[in-house]
C-alpha cells in the first residue's frame, strides 16, 4: 500500500493548485486523475480567463495546466507524484483510498491527508426527446471540438445563457458551426455580459424567458420546439417556435461530484446557490473529518479562479497540519483576501449567500 503524505483526487484547476501549494510548504503529494493528462476541464477552455491578473486572468484556460505543472516540476522535485489514467473508486472509514489504474490494476493508498477536488458534472434537463442522439451536454461539445477537433453537427440550439452556454456558443462559431439561438429560462442572461455581447455581435440571438419543449427527429435530432415563458416560468400558449437544428446543447448548470465525500461520511448540506449538496468545511477548506479537505467545484460551483485559490488554501493547511507550517498565517491571509475579492462583486452575490447559508448564516468562508 502506498502511503503518501497528501493525496489529491482530481487534477483540475483546484487539485493542481492544491498540489503546488502543498509542495511549496514542503509536503509530499500524490495527485490522482482519471484522465491521461492533468488539467481537468482546463484542457478544453480555449478562451481567455477572467479574474485577477495575478491569478492567470487574460491567460487561456488551455495554457494554465502547463504553467502549474512547470512550477510543480521545479518546486516539487521528487515530492510531486502524478498518477494518471487512474480513477478513485472508494474512500474507506480508515482513510484508505481504492483506485483503479488503467482499468487493470487496483491500488490501495493510505495518505495522511486527502484533498478531494473532483469537480462537477453537468445537469440534465427533462423534456421529450432528450434521449435522441444529437442532444449533448455543453462539456461534451467542448471536448469534441477543442480536444478532438470534431464538429458535433451543423446547426446548434444552445440551452442556457450562463457562462458555459455563452462560451461554448462562441467556440462553436469559431469552429464554423452555426448557432441558431441561445435560449435561457430565466428573464436575464446568467453569464458575464461581455461574453453575451461577443456572441450577440457574431449574430447569435439570445432569447431569455424561453425554454425547450421537446426535441424531435427520426433517428437523431432534426429540430426542437421552444416556447416563451411568463414571469412564473409557465409556457405562454401559442408561443411555440420550431427550430431546425441537428444539435441541442445543454448548458443548464453543474452538480458537485460529491460521491467520495458521501462515502467518507463527512457532513453535507443542500445549498442550491452552491450547486446542490456540498460539504461543510471551515475556513481551512477542511471538512467535518479531520484528514479530509475539499477545493473547487466539488465544494461550490464557481469560476476556475476561485477554485484555484480554494486549492491553495486546502493544500496549505493539509501540509501545515503535517507540520509544514512555514508562513501559514501570512499565506492564509493573502489567499483569503484574494478569494474575498473575487467574490465581492454583484456576480459573487449568489456564492456569498450560499456560503453564509452553509455556515448557518454565520461566518463568511
Amino acid at each position, binding site marked *: 500500500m502506498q502511503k503518501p503524505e497528501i493525496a489529491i483526487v482530481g487534477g483540475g484547476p483546484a487539485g493542481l493548485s492544491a498540489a503546488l501549494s502543498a509542495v511549496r510548504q514542503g509536503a509530499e503529494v500524490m495527485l490522482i486523475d482519471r484522465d491521461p493528462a492533468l488539467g481537468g476541464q482546463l484542457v478544453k477552455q480555449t*478562451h*481567455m*480567463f*477572467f*479574474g*485577477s*491578473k495575478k491569478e492567470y*486572468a*487574460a491567460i*487561456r484556460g488551455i495554457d494554465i495546466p502547463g504553467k502549474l505543472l512547470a512550477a510543480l516540476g521545479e518546486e516539487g522535485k521528487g515530492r510531486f507524484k502524478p498518477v494518471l489514467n487512474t480513477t478513485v473508486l472508494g474512500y474507506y472509514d480508515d482513510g484508505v483510498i481504492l483506485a483503479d489504474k488503467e482499468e487493470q490494476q487496483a491500488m490501495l493508498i493510505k495518505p495522511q491527508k486527502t484533498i478531494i477536488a473532483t469537480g462537477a458534472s453537468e445537469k440534465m434537463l427533462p423534456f421529450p426527446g432528450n434521449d435522441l442522439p444529437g442532444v449533448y451536454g455543453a462539456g461534451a461539445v467542448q471536448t469534441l471540438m477543442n480536444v478532438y477537433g470534431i464538429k458535433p453537427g451543423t446547426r446548434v440550439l444552445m440551452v442556457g445563457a450562463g457562462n458555459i452556454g455563452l462560451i461554448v456558443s462562441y467556440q*462553436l*462559431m*469559431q*469552429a*464554423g*458551426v*452555426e*448557432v441558431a439561438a441561445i435560449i435561457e429560462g430565466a*428573464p*436575464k*442572461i446568467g453569464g*458575464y*455580459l*461581455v*461574453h*453575451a*455581447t*461577443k*456572441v*450577440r*455581435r*457574431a*449574430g*447569435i440571438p*439570445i432569447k*431569455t424567458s424561453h425554454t425547450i419543449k421537446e426535441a424531435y427527429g427520426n433517428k437523431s435530432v432534426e429540430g426542437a420546439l421552444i416556447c416563451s415563458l411568463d414571469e412564473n416560468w409557465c409556457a405562454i400558449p401559442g408561443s411555440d417556435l420550431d427550430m431546425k437544428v441537428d444539435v441541442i446543447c445543454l448548458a443548464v448548470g453543474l452538480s458537485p461530484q460529491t460521491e467520495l465525500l458521501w462515502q467518507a461520511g463527512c457532513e453535507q448540506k443542500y445549498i442550491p446557490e452552491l450547486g446542490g449538496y456540498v460539504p461543510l468545511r471551515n475556513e481551512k477548506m477542511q471538512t467535518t473529518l479531520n484528514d479530509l479537505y475539499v477545493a473547487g467545484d466539488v465544494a461550490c460551483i464557481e*469560476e476556475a*479562479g476561485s477554485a484555484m485559490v480554494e486549492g491553495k488554501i486546502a493544500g496549505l493547511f493539509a501540509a501545515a497540519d503535517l507540520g509544514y507550517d512555514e508562513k501559514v498565517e501570512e499565506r492564509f491571509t493573502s489567499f483569503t483576501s484574494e478569494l474575498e*475579492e*473575487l*467574490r*465581492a*462583486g*454583484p*456576480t*459573487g452575490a449568489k456564492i456569498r449567500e450560499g456560503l453564509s447559508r452553509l455556515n448557518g448564516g454565520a461566518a463568511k468562508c
Partner: protein
Amino acid sequence: MLEKTGVPEPEQVKMITPSDVRFQKGPVAVVECFQNIPCDPCRYACRQGAIKEFEDINDLPVIDHELCNGCGLCISECPGLAIFVIDASYSKEEGLVKLPYEYFPLPGQDEEVTGIDTEGEAVCSARVVKVQNTKALDRTPVVTLAVPLQHVMRVRSFLRKGGEEHGR
C-alpha cells in the same frame, strides 16, 4: 436591455464614448465593459496609466481618454473582447476601428468586408487596413477596419464577403 439581449444600450455606450475633441486628436481606446465582474487585466495592459488602478477587482475600468494614446495594447488583453480603438482622425470621410477578431481564416489586407454592429446586423462596407497576429497578441488577432466616419462607434465586428465562415 443588456441583461436580456446582450446588446449594450445606446445610453450605456454614450457614457463611455470619448468627447468629439478627443476623437479629433487621434486614436483612443473605447472600453465597452458595463458589468461589475472580477476582472482586471486591462489595467495592467495599459502603459500610459490611462486605465486607472482598481480599488476592487470588481470595479468597472475607468479610462482617462486624455492619457490614452490609442496604442491598442489593451485590445487583446481583455478576456471579454470588449475594448476597441477608434481613430476618427484617419481621413475626412473614414475612421479606423481596431477590433479583436478570433476567427479563422483571417482577412487579407485591403479586403472589402461588411462591418457589423453589436446586434450582428450589417452596417456598412468596410476595408481591412491592417491585420496583426503577433505572438504578443496570444491568439487574439487585432484587425483594423476603415469605415465611414459616422459608423466608428457602431461597427464592432465584420463578416467576410462570399463564402461560408464561422457559422454565419
